[in-house]
């Protein structure tokens, strides 16, 4: 099998541009990325593992004081990280629905973003942004390369 395929897709280029515009460090830890997102929203982010419906892998719930990223119980750890990065990408890209809509349900909060099917073109870009963030945070393993100085 050849690992060659033809040049970049438009979505890939758009995602790369969006990531560059975030001015993030080339390498940062997951904790640092979460702190970036918390600053962006102005509130703490909590994480929960819950039994979501089958087609849904993750969602971000907005409450007045805290945001919660819920991930599906059946996800493997790399998948869970990728889904969390997808939700963080929404926040970092300053997508609408971030925190200015009314809270209809004070107890449950409001579902702002969901990672389910990726039919929506914007969701696809968010997913590719999440892939880039996965590289920067080491979720996509950089192997021994990351241990070098000239890397």
């Amino acid at each position, binding site marked *: 099998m050849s690992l060659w395929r033809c040049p970049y897709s438009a979505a890939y280029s758009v995602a790369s541009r969006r990531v560059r515009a975030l001015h993030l460090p080339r390498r940062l830890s997951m904790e640092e990325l979460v702190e970036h997102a918390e600053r962006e929203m102005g509130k703490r982010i909590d*994480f929960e593992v819950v039994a979501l419906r089958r087609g849904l892998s993750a969602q971000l719930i907005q409450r007045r004081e805290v945001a919660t990223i819920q991930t599906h119980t059946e996800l493997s*750890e790399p998948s869970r990280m990728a889904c969390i990065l997808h939700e963080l990408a929404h926040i970092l890209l300053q997508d609408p629905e971030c925190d200015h809509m009314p809270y209809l349900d004070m107890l449950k909060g409001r579902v702002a973003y969901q990672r389910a099917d990726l039919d929506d073109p914007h969701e696809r870009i968010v997913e590719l942004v999440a892939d880039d963030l996965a590289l920067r*945070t080491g979720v996509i393993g950089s192997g*021994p390369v990351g241990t*070098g*100085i000239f890397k």
Partner: protein
Amino acid sequence: MTLHFLGSIPVSVVLILMTIRLVLLQTVSASIGWLMACCVSVVCGLGINEPLIAEKLHALTGVPNIADVMGRCLMVCGLLALAQSVEAAADRGRLYHPIRFIAGGAVLLTLIVLFSFIDAPVTSRTFMQTYGDQLPAALYNSIEMAYIATVIAVAAWAIRLELATRRGPSPMYWAFIVGAFGLIILAGIATAMNFAHVAGAMAVNGTLAPFYVGTFLLSMILLSVGSAWPAITTGLSEVREWHEASRQISDLEPVLRDLEQTAGRSGLYFEIPYLRGHWRRRRHRLVLEVEDRAREAGLPVPIGARASAPEGSTKGEQ
């Protein structure tokens, strides 16, 4: 064969190995890219003074000893590329720092201006020995060496800090630090020889010359080994990892096609035209989508799709 050509041999070996790495992996980071640019400039800068090339350049341009000034300018460019490489290696480095380019440009300009003041009518393979009794020649060589010493000292200090604060970098980087120290000493020796020559104290030059040769050759070997060895060894591991990823991708692509049909949904994987250098990203997406489609179809995740655990972790994850 000139001394400088001898010194370029270890750098040439590094460049060849880096090129093989690039051909195999089809990917190059900013840091390795700048390191390769540094090697190209240094090899050309050190090799351009070979009599055959120097005479040819003289004949082509009509300027005697143009090879000498070109060689020094290439060395300055090479060191600028090395500074860029060290900056690119830092997680928060600024690659386009204006002061770095302004300083490099100012040194290049100064070298060219000083060269024009040197009375050197005949092309010589030993330029500084032949014309080094003139003050502009002493300044010309000393400024070049001062720039080299400054850049290499900053690079060595940055690497020293990395070694002190991070676990993981190869101890071979110490060879780079020792080599850099050697180059700083070399700059001191060269400057002393330049001004001794102007003052007519040739006995000083006679004493320092063997130290110059030994320090130069040893520094070039240590700098080459120290900067390239870790990159080459990690490159070999990367090639092995790439082969493994290639096999995993071959195995999982048909699995994903089947799962997409079963789940009645498709993801991004087959729409993205990945380049060969994007194999990590490609494997990540493939594994992720196999897992997504399997879960949606209510099927177990195929064994081959289980990726290794990530290095990062999330704060407060329950």
